[in-house]
């Protein structure tokens, strides 16, 4: 059985392969959990936990939910591993570009200099900062959905939140990766078994303007190119976050990052005449014709 709901700004598609009488109830509960995460971490929702955080002042201390804590802690960790290139505090830049609505008046700064954990669920705001978890929250929601499905005894399933995907079970699932420039074409396919993938690209059209939500968290510069990157990892949250920085890091630093997280990278490049698929094991390019 397969269901889809509009959540997290996109469509969340859940397939359960098992033949279960209670499948309808399971879908309802799992979508409910995703909606709960979306409500907490939404930049657009003025009542969300994230919006409360974004409205807070320097020196304020906040008690946060487990969902917020996990996503923030992971963001700080990846930010540290990437020298600040992964930075959820780029929201002011995304606001200026129109990718995010102009809801908060804050300057762009580093997340690691702006918030610290006092204990597991309490944080101190060191500098007034505006966060957006668009680069990691979908992946986190997919992981949580899969944990819940397993808790209900589901053996084989797939959760797809706008292209952030996790497969659970023995059955390999066929995943089609869109061409970054021609979305009606499929660039390549992967068979996924008990793994997650996330794909990011630098171009997206917003009200006719070319925008990029791939922004260097140190320089504030957006990245524009015709590539897409697909990260494969156990965790969809990690895959999601790493896919946002793969464009921005020099080769050596990227290889180190992939090794730290034991992640695999696929790059789909397009040039004038040939298109390439490269794999992280060698980062060499093989032409596809």
């Amino acid at each position, binding site marked *: 059985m397969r269901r889809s709901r509009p959540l997290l700004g996109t469509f969340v598609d859940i397939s359960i392969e098992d033949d279960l009488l209670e499948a309808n109830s399971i879908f309802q509960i799992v979508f409910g959990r995703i909606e709960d995460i979306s409500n907490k971490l939404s930049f657009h929702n003025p009542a969300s936990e994230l919006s409360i955080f974004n409205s807070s002042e320097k020196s304020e201390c906040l008690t946060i939910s487990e969902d917020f804590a996990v996503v923030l802690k992971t963001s700080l960790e990846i930010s540290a591993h990437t020298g600040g290139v992964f930075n959820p505090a780029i929201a002011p830049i995304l606001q200026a570009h129109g990718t995010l609505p102009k809801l908060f008046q804050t300057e762009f700064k580093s997340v690691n200099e702006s918030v610290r954990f006092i204990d597991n669920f309490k944080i101190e705001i060191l500098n007034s900062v505006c966060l957006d978890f668009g680069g990691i929250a979908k992946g986190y929601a997919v992981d949580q959905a899969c944990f819940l499905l397993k808790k209900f005894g589901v053996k084989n399933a797939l959760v797809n939140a706008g292209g952030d995907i996790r497969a659970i079970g023995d059955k390999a699932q066929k995943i089609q990766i869109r061409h970054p420039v021609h*979305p009606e074409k499929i660039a390549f396919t992967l068979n996924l078994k008990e793994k997650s993938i996330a794909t990011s690209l630098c171009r997206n059209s917003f009200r006719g303007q070319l925008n990029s939500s791939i922004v260097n968290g140190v320089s504030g510069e957006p990245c524009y190119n015709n590539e897409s990157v697909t990260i494969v990892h156990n965790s969809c949250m990690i895959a999601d976050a790493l896919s946002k920085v793969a464009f921005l890091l020099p080769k050596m630093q990227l290889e180190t990052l992939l090794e730290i997280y034991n992640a695999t990278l696929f790059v789909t490049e397009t040039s004038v005449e040939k298109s390439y698929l490269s794999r992280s094991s060698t980062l060499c390019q093989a032409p596809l014709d």
Partner: protein
Amino acid sequence: MLPALITVASEQSFFIEKSFAITYLTLEEAQATLAPNANLQKIDLAISEEKIEQIEDYSGISFNKEGLQIWRASSGNFFIVDNVRGKHEYITYAVVLNSLGALQGLEILEYREAYGDEVRREAWRDQFKQKKIDNNLELNENIINISGATISCSQITKGIRRLLSLHNLVLKNLS
């Protein structure tokens, strides 16, 4: 060598998917899921141009009476099937609104994507009016799980606003 759990199924790529459709629920399944035992009676919607204009103003999208199917339950709830369209996406969905117009349930019934000349073909468009799939059209029925450019759900959000407005202006006043 790639780890055993990850295999590239096909490197001969860049094949074109002209269109694909995913059916999540049939109409009957959607009614059973969202409005079980509801004793649904179909409504023939009569609506003035003035009301249509108000709904379009509120929702930000055009009002398409042909794409709408409305049933009323004995409880006073409404079960509605509607369609929204993005640049390349066409989505059929169902909602339940209670007698006060609050959203009680939502399910996507069908999601379709098409590019190029396909979307301009009369037959491709007409299938959605008739809620039937014409087997002569090029629909890819293979299992589709796609990663890549994110499809926004903003159109369906506007569609729901359209239905909430319809309830407020028309449905709640039906005898």
